[in-house]
């Protein structure tokens, strides 16, 4: 069903050695006239078929750029400086544009915070979905229409046949997001990247979208990378979590493991910030300011905001394994919070 450009890996086989998506030592930078600025310096991430990996971090941590790099959709002037992105083992870096375009949508797809950016406001949603099917698959228009209706029905659009003729602005925010998910999944991609798709939505609407993606993941066996700044949300849906700070992964762990024993002080701070208490209690926070690209500390980039700085933090730490996780810190926290 997916593109012939990729080797055929059974999506559901659990012991497959090939990851659906594998990012290795990705570096992304902004190419300026005189100098280039690093935006992402070291992200390695492997997502197995059917797995959901949460990518968490503050604004400016490089999480969205990592996603755009996987899609080959980096903004002008921003380039992949080093590293590789592999889709079922096939490298996307340096791939011909035409081939990449064929893979986009059919093998890897993305949904955004604002669905209006990826839906054409002047075209009926039905024709947008049908055209995507016709462009990638050898089917008749009638078959494509039938497929589109089924899909819209599947993502929870009531009266799907009728709504095929509606324009994007005729839908509410949550419904529009469902339409975008339908458009992204129409070619049954192996990998779905979700960049804060629920941030602009109300909590009750958000819950429905999360539920939908979880179900579709189960049905289609696709790998999902879910980007969010909201740890509470990630805790509801991810199998594993990668925490990003200042352009690099600082901690990667299983979801439950991460919340129970955060190892990196930054992860700990994020969890603390998201935790809510009773009236009168103070709120948790991380001191200082979000690190801006081009203004990162030379050693450990989190050191200026960290409360556990020790001698050695002026050296830039590597991501190293610790228990079942990996962490980029020379003085990681343990379960009881002691040294």
């Amino acid at each position, binding site marked *: 069903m997916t593109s012939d450009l990729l080797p055929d890996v059974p999506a559901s086989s659990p012991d497959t050695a090939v990851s659906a998506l594998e990012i290795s030592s990705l570096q992304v930078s*902004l190419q*300026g*006239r005189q100098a280039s*600025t690093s935006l992402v310096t070291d992200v390695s991430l492997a997502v197995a078929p059917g797995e959901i990996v949460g990518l968490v971090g503050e604004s400016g941590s490089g999480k969205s750029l990592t996603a755009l790099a996987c899609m080959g959709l980096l903004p002008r002037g921003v380039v992949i400086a080093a590293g590789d992105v592999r889709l079922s083992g096939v490298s996307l870096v340096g791939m011909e544009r035409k081939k990449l375009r064929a893979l986009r949508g059919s093998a890897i797809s993305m949904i955004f915070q604002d669905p209006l950016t990826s839906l054409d406001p002047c075209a009926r949603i039905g024709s947008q979905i049908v055209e995507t099917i016709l462009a990638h698959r050898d089917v008749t228009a009638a078959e494509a229409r039938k497929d589109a209706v089924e899909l819209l029905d599947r993502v929870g659009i009531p009266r799907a046949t009728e709504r095929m003729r509606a324009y994007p602005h005729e839908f509410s925010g949550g419904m529009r997001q469902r339409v975008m998910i339908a458009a992204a999944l129409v070619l049954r991609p192996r990998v779905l990247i979700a960049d804060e798709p629920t941030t602009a939505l109300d909590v009750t609407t958000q819950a429905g979208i999360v539920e939908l993606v979880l179900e579709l993941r189960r049905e289609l066996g696709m790998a999902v990378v879910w980007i969010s700044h909201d740890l509470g949300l990630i805790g509801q849906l991810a199998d594993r979590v990668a925490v990003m700070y200042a352009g690099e992964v600082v901690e990667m762990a299983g979801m439950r493991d991460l919340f129970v024993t955060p190892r990196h002080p930054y992860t700990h701070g994020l969890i603390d910030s998201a935790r809510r208490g009773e009236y009168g209690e103070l709120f948790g926070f991380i001191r200082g300011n*979000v690190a801006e690209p081009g203004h990162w500390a030379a050693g450990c980039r989190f050191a200026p905001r960290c409360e556990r700085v020790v001698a050695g933090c002026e050296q830039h730490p590597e991501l190293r394994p610790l228990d079942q996780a990996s962490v980029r810190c020379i003085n990681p926290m343990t379960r009881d919070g002691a040294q």
Partner: protein
Amino acid sequence: MAIAPALTGQPVGHRERGLLRTLTSRANIAWVIGSLILLSAGAVGVIIQVVPSLRHLYLNQDLEATLKPPLSPHHLLGTDNLGRDLGWQLIAGLGTSLAIGIGVALLSVVLGLIVGIFGGFFGRAADAVANVVVDVTWAFPAILLAVVLAGWIGPSLTTVILALALTNWAGFARIVRGEVLSLRERDFVNAARVLGVPKVLISVRHLASNLVPVTIVLTVYFIATSIIGEAGLTFLGLGIQPPMPSMGETLSTGREYISESWWPVILPGVLLVIIVLFLNGLGDHLRGQLDPRGRVQRR
């Protein structure tokens, strides 16, 4: 660096570079030099008209040497039907045209800002009044107004400026009103209202200051369209009268001799096209430079 805030929605924690460095940066230097050349040529054109001892440069007639082609001795761009030097004629005419352009632009901008802000920010009744005034003005052709003014005060520099400014400003007022409608919903305007700042002060401090980019860009466009407008009105005999030089005047005089000599028509025509193209390009460039988002996304 400018891309980082666009991608993350976060400001970059550093100071903006200075005005001088911006002006001399590689993207701007050509436009700055071009503008300086245009302005100094215009200034020379005005000076030789204003200082009596310099007027001979473009006014001196030489009936021995009428309609000399370009590259003749003493007359680099040739002479006109009265043997006047075409090069100096054009420079003096450029001075007139630029003065008209700038005059029209300033008048239109002031009128447009006042009416646009009045309509956009001072309630529904004000908006209705402003809209009627703008619509009527918008529907009024500049030529008709010029005919009326020419009949009333006689065709002159003032006629041209008034005819163009009194019709042009309406377009600008519309744009300003649109901008104000979106600015007034911004929270800093709400905050100022909550702080008890009077409306007149808000419209100066918060609205006018944020209208500066669109105003600058449109001023440049107005200069360009007014130069063309002047040439048109003068060509029809409603504008500048001889012996005052202007692009339109040189064109309309030269037209009578087009069968014998091309240069009195072609040369001012080409100059007109070059100047208007340059000004339009400058406007586009400024738009990109003054809009922080445009600076990033311009392709």
